[in-house]
């Protein structure tokens, strides 16, 4: 009886946390008044510390492991409710979709950098490959879903041009290879006019079984369809990334990252795993790039500069390297925060950079530190349960 009471309290706490978080996030997205924004941020920080004081993050973790349905209830349903609530808020939806797309790309980077230890400073370039592929192909008569897949595929293929140097180099040396690629990719697009040159390309709207994504869906916003598509894409990529982590594949990738000598002494084909992670990661980034291009309706080389690659890397680091879950709040922070700082106009980047520095000084490991691998939900608990 007592135990059940405790569970009830825990559930109520989690429900409350999730409700408050949802309300705050939605309010943060919609509200434009500076004072209100400040109040929301203040409330959020306050709420975070209260929750931490009550040990709620830990409880959530525990409950989620034991009862995944609670997880879906407290994460998925607020998202759906929030979207339904925001269905007329074009801009909020646009931002949600952008966050989801960036998070997807960063999941690709997590696979490369977080799991396998491959530094990829050319994230934006692969985003661009996906985008340009989509831009060129959408205007042909190819089914649009296929086009986005082809965008991912193309990113993976272009990425394989770099495989030889990426395989041979490590650490900063590998960073240089990708930095070089990022720089030359953008410059090449800009100089060479075959792909629209500096002006870029326009992209016809995304069509899915006769559903035009640029038309309002069910009388709501133009961007609702994109939000749904982006969230679905993120979900699928997230699940795949997570499943990879919690399987023999993830274990192999970790082994490659942590000690190549040991890995080779235990029969692990380092090159093969690196190729897998690099290619699959680029594929995910390419998919994200494809959808992003579709949503924007126009892409140009200046979207895919080295600075943009750094933004992607920043998200991965800020989220906590190797933790796919951290990528989502980190994208939210890095993508939405500068936008919310529009009211301070030319000072916004200064403040933004200072804020990120502060976050890092207070959370040196990133927002969510990567934990030990658990292969399945009850991992590490079985023994206790049995006893």
């Amino acid at each position, binding site marked *: 009886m007592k135990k059940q009471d405790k569970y009830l309290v825990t559930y109520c706490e989690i429900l409350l946390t999730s409700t408050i978080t949802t309300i705050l996030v939605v309010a943060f997205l919609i509200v434009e008044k500076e004072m209100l924004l400040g109040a929301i941020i203040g409330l959020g920080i306050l709420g975070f510390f209260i929750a931490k004081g009550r040990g709620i993050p830990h409880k959530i973790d525990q409950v989620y492991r034991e009862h995944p349905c609670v997880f879906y209830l407290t994460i998925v349903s607020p998202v759906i409710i929030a979207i339904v609530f925001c269905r007329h808020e074009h801009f909020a939806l646009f931002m949600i979709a952008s966050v989801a797309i960036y998070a997807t790309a960063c999941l690709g980077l997590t696979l490369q950098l977080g799991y396998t230890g491959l530094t990829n400073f050319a994230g934006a370039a692969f985003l661009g490959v996906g985008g340009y592929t989509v831009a060129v192909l959408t205007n042909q008569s190819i089914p649009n879903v296929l086009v986005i897949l082809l965008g991912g595929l193309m990113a993976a293929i272009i990425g394989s041009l770099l495989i030889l140097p990426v395989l041979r180099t490590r650490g900063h040396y590998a960073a240089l290879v990708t930095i070089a690629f990022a720089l030359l990719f953008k410059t090449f697009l800009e100089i060479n006019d075959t792909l629209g040159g500096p002006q870029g390309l326009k992209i016809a709207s995304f069509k899915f079984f006769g559903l035009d994504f640029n038309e309002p869906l069910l009388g709501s916003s133009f961007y609702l369809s994109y939000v749904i598509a982006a969230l679905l894409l993120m979900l699928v990529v997230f699940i*795949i990334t997570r*499943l*990879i982590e919690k*399987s*023999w*594949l993830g*274990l*192999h990738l*970790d*082994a490659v990252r*942590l*000690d190549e*000598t*040991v*890995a*080779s*002494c*235990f*029969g*692990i*084909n380092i090159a093969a795993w690196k190729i897998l992670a690099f290619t699959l990661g680029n594929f995910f980034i390419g998919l994200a790039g494809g959808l992003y291009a579709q949503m924007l309706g126009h892409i140009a080389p200046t979207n895919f500069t080295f600075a943009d690659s750094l933004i992607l890397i920043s998200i991965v680091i800020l989220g906590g390297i190797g933790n796919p879950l951290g990528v989502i709040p980190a994208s939210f922070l890095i993508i939405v925060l500068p936008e919310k700082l529009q009211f301070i106009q030319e000072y916004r980047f200064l403040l933004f950079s200072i804020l990120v520095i502060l976050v890092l000084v207070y959370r040196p490991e990133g927002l969510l530190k990567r934990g*030990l*691998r658990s*292969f*399945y939900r009850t*991992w*590490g608990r079985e*023994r206790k349960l049995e006893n």
Partner: protein
Amino acid sequence: MKTSLLQVEGLTVRFGGLTALSNLDFKLGEGDLLGLIGPNGSGKTTCFNAITGLYKKNSGSVLLRNKEITHSSPQNIYRNGITRTFQRLRLAIGLSVFDNLVIGDAMHLNTSIYFNVFRRSNLRADIKNRLEQAEEILAFFNPKLIDNIYQPIGKLSMIDRRRIEVCRALISKPSVLLLDEPSAGMTHEETRDFMTDLMEIKIKTPKLGVILIEHEMNVIERVTDRCIVLSYGKKIAEGDYRDVSTNKDVRAAYLGED
């Protein structure tokens, strides 16, 4: 006569001007426990590194069950059944004990994407099997470790880490096991227990051939059938412990005259 497992002929390894290993010959039969001893810097670890393919050999050959593996990659050598431990521990600090152990059996893990991502229930069954297998081998060396199987390696004491390394090398059921100073840092008592466990393993898998690098002479005396003494990369003596320990060269170079 036991069937030959590992055969090393004329093995030479040089680093610049330094000949770390020169013209080394030896044989390891099934079930042998061969001691490899010698002063510091005499080339023992280098010999392991050469056999496992980490160092390039300047000349000589290595045969495993009469199959040439001289120029195979470390991956293939492992797949052919040679595993090892490292003199300086090389465990993945950020991973759990289980992760560290199971990576030792990488060649038997199913790494197809389809299996790992889409056949989760099969994977789960597989993982549970591996868990049992890991617990079994831990139980052998130190049953207390089983409770730590989900813990990060960093929480263990040095000596337990050493045990984990040995377990990692054993978990794939190799035919040759190379142990590089496994008892370093252990007390006499712990060393004794460890060697007892090792002997038991030998009894359970009678065909396993082991090469043991060790500086504890009583260990060598107790567990090895035969030993090889290296000095400056050359073999200066070979035979059972009694022969070797009375050899004048060995006493001068290694044991100390008294």
